């Protein structure tokens, strides 16, 4: 369960996030939707504690991300945008490295890694060095290593970027599996259809503010648009004009 309350973040004179609040409950998929530069990544970076908010607070399972970053990170599996692997290590070694850093017991690591390798279907290339991996393979391994400690909350920043149809599909299946096992899944995207197809709740962000926070159905109703894409454009226009 992730709760964000009125967070602000500036970089120099750029006010990237200006008062974002929302909740991402367990057992649901929450989508952060918005155009490029809307403040999605900055919001997520605050959640996985790489950035500190200038104002406001954020909690992971009730743990404050600023006051107790270490504990908060322990409850998160994060896949930052464009996450890279270690090219000289095999896929499996990349995953094991994270498992050890997350403090998993030595005996349990092998079994845990085996399970995540199966879950993400990376067995075929698990023992190859990740130097020559395709974008899809890289994303899968990066996702596997951030899930290896079985976190309750999963934060994915534009996970489907650069993936082909098949890879996008298996990613979607994984996200659904995570939800069905009671996890809190929060992911960002600028692709309307993807969010519409997958998310239980949609938070539309524009210009560093929340434009709308509702279910897909609710958004259609509130904006009076049948088509979700029209609703998206409508909501963003409203924020940007006022």
């Amino acid at each position, binding site marked *: 369960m992730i709760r964000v309350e009125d967070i602000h973040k500036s970089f120099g004179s750029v006010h990237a996030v200006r008062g974002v609040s929302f909740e991402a409950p367990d057992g649901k998929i929450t989508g952060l939707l918005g155009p490029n530069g809307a403040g999605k990544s900055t919001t997520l970076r605050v959640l996985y504690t790489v950035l500190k908010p200038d104002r406001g607070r954020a909690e992971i399972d009730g743990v404050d991300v600023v006051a107790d970053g*270490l504990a908060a*990170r322990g409850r998160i599996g*994060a896949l930052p945008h*464009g*996450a890279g692997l*270690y090219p000289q290590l095999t896929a499996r070694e990349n995953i094991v490295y994270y498992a050890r850093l997350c*403090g998993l017991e030595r005996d349990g690591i092998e079994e845990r890694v085996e399970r995540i390798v199966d879950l993400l279907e990376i067995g075929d290339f698990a023992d190859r060095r990740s130097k020559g991996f395709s974008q899809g393979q890289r994303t899968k391994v990066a996702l596997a290593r951030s899930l290896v400690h079985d976190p309750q909350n999963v934060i994915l920043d534009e996970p489907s970027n650069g993936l082909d149809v098949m890879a996008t599909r298996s990613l979607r299946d994984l996200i659904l599996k995570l939800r069905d096992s009671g996890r809190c899944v929060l992911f960002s995207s600028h692709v309307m259809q993807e969010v519409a197809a997958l998310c239980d709740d949609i938070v539309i962000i524009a210009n560093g503010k929340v434009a709308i926070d509702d279910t897909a159905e609710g958004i259609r109703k509130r904006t009076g648009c049948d088509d979700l894409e029209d609703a998206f454009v409508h909501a963003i226009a409203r924020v940007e004009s006022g």
Partner: protein
Amino acid sequence: MRTLATVFVKEVVDNFRDRRALMSALIFGPLFGPIFFAFIINLSIERSLSNAEQTLDLAVIGAERAPNLVAFLASRNIDVVDGPADRQAALEAAKTGEHNVVLIVPERFAEQLAGATPARLEVVSDQANTEADGEARRVRNAIQEYSRQLAGLRLTARGISPLLLRPINVDDVDVSTSSGRAGILLGMMSYFFIFSLLMGGMYLAIDSTAGERERGSLEPLLSLPVTRDQLMLGKIAATCMFMALSLSLSLVTFFFALKFMPFEELGMTPNFSPSVVLSAFLVLSPMILLGAAVMTLVASFTKSYKEAQTWLSVVLLAPTMPILIVSILTLRPRFEFMFVPSLSQHLLLVDMIKNEPLVPVHVAVSVLSTLAVGAILTVICARLYRREGLLG
């Protein structure tokens, strides 16, 4: 502690698999340095030795006018061969390098000699050519000697003691030991050691900071439930490991390379026994922490792998500065020098090679001050890693 160890192991494995990094860490620095050095020294020693012993073939114009001189030269290992046709040809031959030295005996030589007026000889050589210059000096010395001999004979013939010509006799008393003389030649070796030490950790320092950021692997790493201090310390520890490895390799290579250098023939005995190798490692080892911290710190500020490489090559040269200044001024070890990293290690190392006793206070100050600077820089690195701006 466990996190630190995990990071350490991963970075070491990672670096061992990166062929380019490994080559530069364990081959270029430690092996090429000493071998190259040994080769150059060998060449120059062999040349200076052989020149003095070998028979010199000297081209002479008009040798028939000075048979006694020719005989004297032969006794000094200088054989006379036929020279060019005339003086003009001799100048040309010296210029083109056909002959290194040409001795011209003018027609009036015998006449002048008989008349006891200074007899003129010409030694033609290209003094810009070190080899020709050396040979010309040998010829000149031999002629001087012959000249002194003649003068002595002339005085004796007139009933005067030839000792009158030598009012002062100078005796050189050399107090240098054979190890001390070797120190001059091997002094610059300390830079090779520091260089290969730094080379050993350079790629790892870049890879674990700028490289990790460029690859996009830094952000996910920072989102794990570990503290950034531990990540940083693990990375610095791995860099230290490679630097230590590279330093010991270069010391061992140098130990063997010395065996192939003909120092005895120069009257030098470099003091570089296995126990000196070990002490040299201990004296140089504080540079490991300092080097790892400096390289990591500099690489942390850069935006990309390429930029880091550029800046770190400057770091590679930095330790030469104090060594160079001290070598030019030929300063002896002093207490205050021991506070300067790289300089203090250089001075201690030179003393070791010269087989002079080390001053314990000097060693202590050198070790402690270098370690202190290294520790301070390590703390700064860790602090830097806590900043948000790290992600670039």
